């Protein structure tokens, strides 16, 4: 690839348009099919729900800070943990990751848009509508005559708690339909990402030369096609049960509660990998750039991801060790669950190999990624404990498991996401995020995270089950719960500083330039923010690091790959 063909935006079109009115801007965003605008909308939408879900978490933690607290009623508490879980998984984690995938995948493969831009817009609006529908239950859960109630069946909504006998009114229907609707959006986006990656890559970019981020999002999308389907099927069956006299999960009429668990978790566990794989993707882009070395063992990283994709489809029943499966079934799921740790471990070692011998620049994206590496290690190890079925008979459904998956989701996914925000914000907005505020955000959040989720393991070991709105004094749980609750406030302040930082830097931030991190993938070749058409000239690549080749013509990558 020669430097002349490097697309620099601004060369293509210098026409200046008159400043649009706000109604034109609104219209533009509502009807847009541009992958970058849709990506930004996904991200902003997810951030709004992050704050909402965070408020719900704070309510839960205030109630649990001391024994016999009366901050909220048991009914409200149960609604809050249901909404917190549902919101964070379906309307924060998935949209924000789709947002980044939408924004970055076409840029990184040198394409001008996704394969199906209209499907892309449709999927976003379905997801958005799903979230709004879920929250409309605050008004409409009891029907319009009542005061309203929100779903209170837990985010996995075990049967038969969702049957008409135990869940009157419409709160469960809001839960069901909102996930059904956003699930269709998810499938649309997954199809779109697969099609884009397979058919829109720029000349020279074979599958083996794609950036890891693209590979990992391809695997994630492929997994979604398998995992959203059973969830959608289960939601439909639940609707049939509730409104058409079906008895799939209606135990009073001979239905099976266990079959719902299977349907839910064959979605639910791969879902964890659906969320973490794009975060592996962020780390796999950020760590090399800040260590100044290519990713260690690229083919193995791809193979390990594909391997995780397959194996994770066979581990779901480790959420069900206590439902009375036979010893052989339990042993099978122990084996598959532990086996998934092998490719995951390989990834950690390869990131380590990437850092080894490098010159690590401790900019904010790298700091978040380092936090990710340490915390994900711990989350993986507590995962091994939970994967050993007998240990899980004690730990399952206790606060230990709550601490474990928050270590994955907050310590892993959210840390990698914050890293991604600091890394790509300059590309998306053209402005750098403020460094000083960023450091405050990092250190406060790190402190709060460890205060909350390290200590949360202990009440689990001491026999405290999850989803209880209050507990007795004298069980040895109180002090740990208090510490956990205090940690939440550090995290809340940190997140608010982050939100402020984004708004502040968007208007007042330092101008970033095209390539502030001296990075190597194609998105840094175009302007910040990229023009609507991404690249004035479709680039041509010869290696996995086209910008490295460009910057080091004497020592290009393609000689070694």
């Amino acid at each position, binding site marked *: 690839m020669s430097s002349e063909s490097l697309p620099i935006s601004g060369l293509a079109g210098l026409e200046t348009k008159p400043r649009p009115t706000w109604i034109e801007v609104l219209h533009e965003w509502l009807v847009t099919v541009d992958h970058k605008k849709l990506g930004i909308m996904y991200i902003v939408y997810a951030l709004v729900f992050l704050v909402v879900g965070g408020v719900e978490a704070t309510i839960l933690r205030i109630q649990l800070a001391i024994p016999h607290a009366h901050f909220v009623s048991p009914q409200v508490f149960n609604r809050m943990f249901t909404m917190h879980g549902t919101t964070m998984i379906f309307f924060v984690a998935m949209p924000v990751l789709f947002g980044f995938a939408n924004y970055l995948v076409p840029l990184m493969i040198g394409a001008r848009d996704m394969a199906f831009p209209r499907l892309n817009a449709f999927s976003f609006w379905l997801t958005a509508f799903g979230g709004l529908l879920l929250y409309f239950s605050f008004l409409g859960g009891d029907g319009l005559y009542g005061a309203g109630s929100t779903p209170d069946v837990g985010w996995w909504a075990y049967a038969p708690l969702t049957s008409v006998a135990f869940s009157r009114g419409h709160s469960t229907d809001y839960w069901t339909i909102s996930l059904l609707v956003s699930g269709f959006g998810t499938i649309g986006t997954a199809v779109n990402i697969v099609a884009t990656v397979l058919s829109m890559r720029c000349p020279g970019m074979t599958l083996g030369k794609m950036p890891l981020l693209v590979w990992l999002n391809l695997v994630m999308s492929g997994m979604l096609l398998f995992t959203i389907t059973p969830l959608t099927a289960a939601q439909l069956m639940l609707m049939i049960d509730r409104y058409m006299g079906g008895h799939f999960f209606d135990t009073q009429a001979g239905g099976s509660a266990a079959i719902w668990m299977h349907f839910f978790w064959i979605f639910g566990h791969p879902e964890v990998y659906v969320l973490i794989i794009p975060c592996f993707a962020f780390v796999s882009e950020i760590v090399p750039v800040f260590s100044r070395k290519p990713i260690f063992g690229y*083919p193995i990283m791809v193979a390990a991801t594909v391997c995780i994709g397959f194996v994770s489809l066979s581990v779901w029943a480790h959420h069900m060790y206590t439902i009375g499966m036979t010893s052989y079934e339990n042993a099978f799921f122990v084996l598959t669950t532990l086996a998934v740790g092998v490719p995951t471990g390989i990834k950690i070692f390869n990131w380590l190999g990437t850092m080894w011998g490098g010159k690590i620049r401790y900019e904010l994206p790298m700091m978040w990624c380092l936090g990710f590496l*340490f915390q994900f290690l711990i989350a993986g190890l507590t995962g091994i404990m939970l994967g*050993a079925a007998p240990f899980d008979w004690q730990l399952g*459904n206790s606060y230990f498991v709550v601490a474990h998956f928050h270590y994955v989701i907050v310590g892993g996914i959210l840390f990698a996401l914050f890293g991604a925000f600091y890394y790509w914000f300059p590309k998306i907005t053209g402005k750098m995020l403020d460094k000083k505020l960023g450091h405050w955000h990092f250190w406060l959040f790190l402190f709060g995270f460890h205060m909350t989720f390290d200590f949360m393991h202990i009440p689990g070991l*001491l026999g405290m089950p999850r989803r209880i709105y209050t507990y007795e004094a004298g069980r040895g749980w109180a002090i740990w719960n208090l510490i956990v609750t205090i940690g939440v406030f550090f995290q809340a302040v940190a997140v608010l500083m982050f939100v402020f930082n984004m708004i502040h830097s968007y208007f007042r931030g330092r101008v970033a330039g095209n390539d502030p991190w001296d990075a190597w993938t194609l998105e840094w070749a175009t302007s910040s923010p990229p023009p609507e058409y991404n690249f004035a000239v479709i680039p041509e690549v010869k290696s996995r690091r086209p910008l490295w080749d460009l910057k080091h013509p004497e020592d290009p990558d393609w000689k070694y790959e």
Partner: protein
Amino acid sequence: MRSTTWAVLAGALFSRLAPAEASLPTNIFAPVSTPAQLVHGLSLFVLTVTGVIFVVVFSLLAYSAIKFRRRPDDDGREPFQIYGSDQLELAWTVIPIIIVMVLFLTSARVIHTVQDARKPKSAIDVTVVGHQFWWEFRYPQYGFVTANELHVPVSDPKHPTPTYLKLLSADTDHSFWVPRLAGKTDLIPNHPNEMWIDPHETGLFLGQCAQYCGTQHAKMLLRVYVQSREDFDAWVRSQQQAPAPVSPGDAAAGQRVFQSTACINCHAVSGTNANGKFGPDLTHLMSRSTIASGAVPNTPANLRGWIGNPETFKPGSLMPAMNLTPKELDEVTTYLLTLH
């Protein structure tokens, strides 16, 4: 960042604290029954293995993060570009596979030992029925029913008398969890399960429902009294007897109120026409130390308050307030106090 180490420390520390059961009555690291002890043994092994992995990987990460940081006097040149190493990849694939196999085999052994244990003839049978939000205990060998407080005999390892629990549910999913006796097993409607315990010590062991079952999941508490064989047999005999007829006066008046209101739709008192099955059997109510599934101690004042308005102790409980007059409340309370 050190929670795994903490878990190890916690394991060691809390095991030491085990005899002082009152301070940490539901500590999983203080087992007193074979299933819990087997899990405990496995957990220490898993904690050791994960602890070693943690120390090794943490050190490597910390070392490379510090050692390979860019120095202030950096010459600005890019470091040596390394793309991978097949030997290393092979090493960090094979070693984890070996660890996985070891952990799998140890887990499978414990799974088999606990789940496929043969039931001895001397075993006590108890049928546990989970209800929103209380526990029903049926003793089919002895022919009586009680609630919320399970009594089992201590099991001498030489002459084991384990208790086999058949787990059923009347409504939603529940989970039976008494951490010091065994891991949890779910009670799922239409899906009978079984678990067993063989406590080696007498005493009171606490637990609670561990599967979200509705509004009052939090106050679906469990008390297991492990008694010497003699005490257990005596308790069984007392439970088998019908309560003595009430003497005339307030108690008789209370019984009339009890039997003429909706109380008997849900509650049973053997020997009377109260035979409801929806709520706890009250035949020997006063032999229990708590009411409302462990929510409050069984004192006359609490009993009166509970009958007057269950919402005060347990909002969302399925027992309705019967709107009794204060006089009727007193009488019913007096009646219930006779149910020894």
